[in-house]
């Protein structure tokens, strides 16, 4: 029997597969029109514009894509998805790349986004609610002592107006809430 030859998916196909549920026809239908980049309010802070990032994915530049800050700079405002003439939904691509980089343990350690997401998700797993100004735990590592002092001044202003709680709130049925989540992600330690 001759050895079979199979088609191995390209990087663009691999990422398109991760986006299967968004209904996109795949990243390779991108025409590089840059409507996504023009629609993006955070584009100036991305090391590659959304258009360029899609071009890089289609060119198979996996490492350059994973080293990019672009998807962690996405504000999830969906402006790009609203305007893309090819129905690519770049905002969903940014989510897919965040998940992909986390699952592969290839997220950039120097960016705040991954760590902030981790803290946020863990807080809600513990209590069912977020502690506002939800950002509080993240401030500590966000800007070191300087950042913390700056945030404390900001926090004091809100505190003076009665806009910061002294204790985090939590839901009543935390145990069954966690059991629910453990049915989605089957790991021992959740419930």
């Amino acid at each position, binding site marked *: 029997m001759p050895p079979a030859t199979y088609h191995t998916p390209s990087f663009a196909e691999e990422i398109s597969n991760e986006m299967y549920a968004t209904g996109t026809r795949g990243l390779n239908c991108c025409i590089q029109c840059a409507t996504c980049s023009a629609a993006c309010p*955070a584009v100036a802070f991305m090391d590659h514009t959304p258009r360029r990032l899609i071009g890089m994915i289609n060119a198979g530049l996996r490492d350059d894509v994973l080293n990019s800050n672009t998807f962690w700079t996405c504000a999830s405002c969906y402006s790009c998805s609203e305007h893309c003439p090819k129905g690519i939904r770049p905002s969903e691509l940014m989510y897919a790349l965040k998940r992909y980089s986390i699952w592969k343990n290839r997220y950039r350690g120097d*960016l705040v986004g991954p760590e902030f997401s981790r803290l946020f998700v863990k807080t*809600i797993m513990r209590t069912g609610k977020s502690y506002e100004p939800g950002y509080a735990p993240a401030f500590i590592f966000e800007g070191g002592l300087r950042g913390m002092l700056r945030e404390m001044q900001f926090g004091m202003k809100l505190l003076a107006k009665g806009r910061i709680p002294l204790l985090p709130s939590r*839901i009543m049925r935390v145990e*069954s809430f966690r059991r629910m*989540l453990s049915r989605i992600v089957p790991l021992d330690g959740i419930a």
Partner: protein
Amino acid sequence: MKRYAYFPGCSAETVSASYHLSAVEAGTRLGVEFEEIEDWNCCGATPYTNIDELLAHALCARNLAIAEREHLDVVAPCSACFKNLYHTNACLRAEPDLADHMNYALEADALRFEGTIAVRHLIHVFVEDVGLEAVRRKVTHPLTGVRVAPYYGCQLVRPDRHDGYDAAAPRYFEDLLAATGATPVDFPYRLRCCGASLMVANRPAALAMVRDLLRSAVQAQADVIATTCPLCQLNLEAYQGDVNREFGTEYRVPVLYFTQLMGLAMGIGRKKLGIGRELIPPTKVLECVARKAAAAEAPKTAEVSHP
């Protein structure tokens, strides 16, 4: 009395208590009753989707299933919560396998999603269900001459909405403000994201986005920015000092919830609307209301002195 299952969202208990207060007050005045969803949980914001979108759906599905037991449509005052709850409701209705999977998870909390209710944003309830005419009839202190920038933000108008809204060129916020007697200004950045989800993850980007919005509002000569979301309100108001330091600007633009403006125009007391908790006082708005109150008092005084 119209009744809704009310999803306050995490910030309603804290930074945005005044939104919560003014929503309930304005609702009561207009015959709308908000029944808080029992033991509701966080909607997951964006971080859950960053890691596992099915987990994000589970968080929203739990809230929807609790509301469904009461057979009430869900109303969310926070645009980000609204977007998440709306999205999950739409996805679960469209994909039976996903709904089945969520129901498998919800069993652990003795709940079930059937897809029988709708998810609404607070402003849509006032504009559509209550109606502008009903609002107009209740206005006793029209905000005449107050120039308001209607800030829709991003999550309110996006994404995947197939229920008749014009996401590209909505007008209902302007119309609602006009119903209170205020002047809605032409605010070019009204649909642009404020960057709230980036304030921690990428502060320079978020501050620049706040700056862009403030500049647009100031160029439109707005006396106040009206918001429909606690994250936008906090982001636009509380970080103005940081924006000014970062960019050498001198912005000082008050940012109120649209429900506070509605409440003031309907003659509801400031305290009941949570007014006084702002970091930047909405002086022009309050002066206008005070003038209207004084004018309302004046004829009575005149009558008393000349019986």
